[in-house]
C-alpha cells in the first residue's frame, strides 16, 4: 500500500520535470522542404552511393577469377547465340540484324534490370535504412549507378561487332549520343524510382506484378524484332516508352541517331516521372520507414 502511495507522488513529481521547456520554438519544415532536402542531400553524398554501388558489384563476383567481367561474358554468350539464331528465324540479313540485336539487348538489359530493382528500391535495403539515417533518394542513386557500372561492362560485347561488321556499323560522332541517353535514363531512374519504390514498399504485390510485366514488355517492344515488321501497325511501337528509351542507347551504339519522336516520348515520360515521383515522395516520404 505504502509502495503505491510512493509511486503516485513520484509520478506527480515526474510530471513537473518532464515538460518540454516552454521557450522552445519548433521549426516545422513543410513536406516539400523535407523532400527537397532529401533529394539534394542524396545527390551530394555521392561518395556513399558510389561506394555502395561499386561494393554491390564487387561482392557479387568476389573470389571469382574474372570478377565483374563475368557480366560481359554472360551477356556475350546470350546475345551472340541469340543473334545468330534469330537472324535466321526472321530471315534477316546477318550483318544488319546482328548489331541491331546486340545493341538492343544491351539497352534492354539496362532498362529491365533498373525497373525490376526499383520496385524494391527501399525494401531491399531495409536493414540499412533502419540503422543509419541517410537520404532516401540515395538508394535510387545506388541502383542507377550500379546499373550504369554494369552497362559499362556489358557494352564491351559491342567491340567484336564493330570489328566484324565494320562496313555496317561504325563508331562515329553519333556514338557520343550514348552519353545524353544514359543521363536521361539515370534521371528517370531517380524519378520513377521514387514512385516505384514507394508503391513497392507499401503494396508488396506490386513489385511481383511489375516483375512479371517486364517479361511481357520484352516481347512487345522491338528488341529482337525490328519495328518495320509491324507494317501499318507501327504506331503501336511509337507509343511504347520502352522503345523510345531503348532507341536512345541503341541508335548511337549503331552509329545512328534516335528520331525526334523518340526524344519527344522520352521527354514526356521524364516530365510524367518527375510529376508522379516528386508528388508521391513529398506526400509519403515520412511513411517509408514504417512500410519497409
Amino acid at each position, binding site marked *: 500500500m505504502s509502495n503505491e502511495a510512493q509511486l503516485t507522488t*513520484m509520478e506527480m513529481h515526474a510530471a513537473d520535470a518532464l515538460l518540454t521547456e516552454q521557450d522552445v520554438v519548433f521549426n516545422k519544415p513543410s513536406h516539400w522542404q523535407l523532400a527537397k532536402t532529401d533529394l539534394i542531400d542524396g545527390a551530394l553524398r555521392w561518395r556513399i552511393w558510389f561506394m555502395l554501388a561499386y561494393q554491390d558489384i564487387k561482392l557479387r563476383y568476389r573470389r571469382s577469377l574474372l570478377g565483374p567481367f563475368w557480366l560481359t561474358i554472360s551477356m556475350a554468350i546470350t546475345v551472340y547465340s541469340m543473334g545468330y539464331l534469330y537472324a535466321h528465324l526472321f530471315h534477316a540479313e546477318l550483318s544488319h540484324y546482328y548489331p541491331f540485336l546486340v545493341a538492343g539487348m544491351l539497352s534492354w538489359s539496362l532498362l529491365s534490370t533498373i525497373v525490376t530493382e526499383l520496385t524494391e528500391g527501399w525494401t531491399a535495403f531495409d536493414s*540499412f535504412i533502419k540503422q543509419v539515417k541517410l537520404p532516401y533518394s540515395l538508394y535510387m542513386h545506388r541502383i542507377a549507378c550500379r546499373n550504369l557500372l554494369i552497362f559499362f561492362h556489358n557494352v564491351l560485347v559491342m567491340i567484336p561487332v564493330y570489328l566484324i561488321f565494320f562496313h555496317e556499323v561504325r563508331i562515329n560522332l553519333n556514338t557520343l549520343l550514348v552519353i545524353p541517353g544514359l543521363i536521361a535514363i539515370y534521371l528517370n531512374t531517380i524519378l520513377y524510382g521514387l514512385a516505384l519504390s514507394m508503391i513497392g514498399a507499401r503494396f508488396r504485390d506490386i513489385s511481383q506484378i511489375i516483375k512479371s510485366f517486364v517479361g511481357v514488355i520484352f516481347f512487345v517492344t522491338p528488341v529482337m524484332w525490328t519495328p518495320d515488321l509491324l507494317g501499318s501497325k507501327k504506331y503501336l511501337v511509337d507509343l511504347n516508352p520502352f522503345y523510345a528509351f531503348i532507341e536512345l542507347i541503341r541508335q548511337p551504339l549503331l552509329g545512328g541517331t534516335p528520331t525526334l519522336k523518340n526524344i519527344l516520348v522520352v521527354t514526356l515520360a521524364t516530365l510524367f516521372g518527375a510529376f508522379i515521383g516528386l508528388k508521391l515522395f513529398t506526400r509519403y516520404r515520412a511513411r517509408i*520507414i514504417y512500410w519497409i
Partner: protein
Amino acid sequence: MARIDLRDVSVDFPVYNVHARSLKKNFLRVATGGNVSEDTNHHVVVRSINRLNLSLRHGDRLGLIGHNGSGKSTLLRLLARIYEPTEGDFNIEGHVSPMLEIMHGIEAEFTGYENIYIRGTVLGLTRQEIKQQVDSIAELTGLGDFLAMPVRTYSSGMMVRLVFAISTSIKPEILLIDEVFGAGDADFMEKARNKMISLLNQSSIVVMATHADVLIKEFCNKALLLDGGKLKYFGSVDTALKLYHQKENVSN
C-alpha cells in the same frame, strides 16, 4: 551547442499483415510492448511512443530504462531521425552519432580494412579522413595482420573488436547507444572501456538504453523510465531505477 526537444511526440507503427479481426477483442494491453489499436482504415497500429515530452541540453547523460518493448529503441531511432514522429514536434540540433546495432553493415566477404573504409564512408568521411584514422582504428582492434583477411575468418570476439573500434572512431555531438556491448577478452574490455569513457566525455549529449543498472549509475546523470511507450518518470537515476524495480515487484 547540441540540444534535443520533443513535444507531444508519438510514434505509431502500422502493421499490415495482421488482420484486426484476428486479434483478440478489445485489443490487449500487454505487459510488454506498446498499445495495439486500429486506425480508420482498419489497419492494426502499434503505438510505441505515446505523447512524449523531453528536453536535453549540453552535458546531459540520459539513461533509458524500461521493459522489453517499452519504446527505448524506438526512442533512440527517433532521436537518430530514422523514425519521424507520427504526431508532435521535435527539434534536434547537433550531429547525431547512433551506435545502435553496430554489427550491421559489416560485410563478411570483405577484409577488415575494407570494412573500415565502408563504414567510414557511410558515416560521411572522405577517403582522406579515413586514411588518417585507419591506423588508430587498427591499433585499437589489436587484430594486426588479420585486418587484411576477410571478416568471415574472424572469431566472434575478433568481430566485436573490429566493430567496436570502427564504431567508436567518431567525434560525436549527440551520442545514442543501444545496449552497450560487452564481449571480447579481459585485455580488450579494458581498452574498450577507456575508449567508451573518452567517447562519452567528448559528446555533448548522450542517450543510452541498457538493462544494466551499473552502467546507468556510472555513466548517466539523468534517467527516463518508459512503460508502454509512455514516460513514467524523468529525473534522477536512483529514483528511476527504484521505480523500475518497485514496479517489477508490484506486478509480481
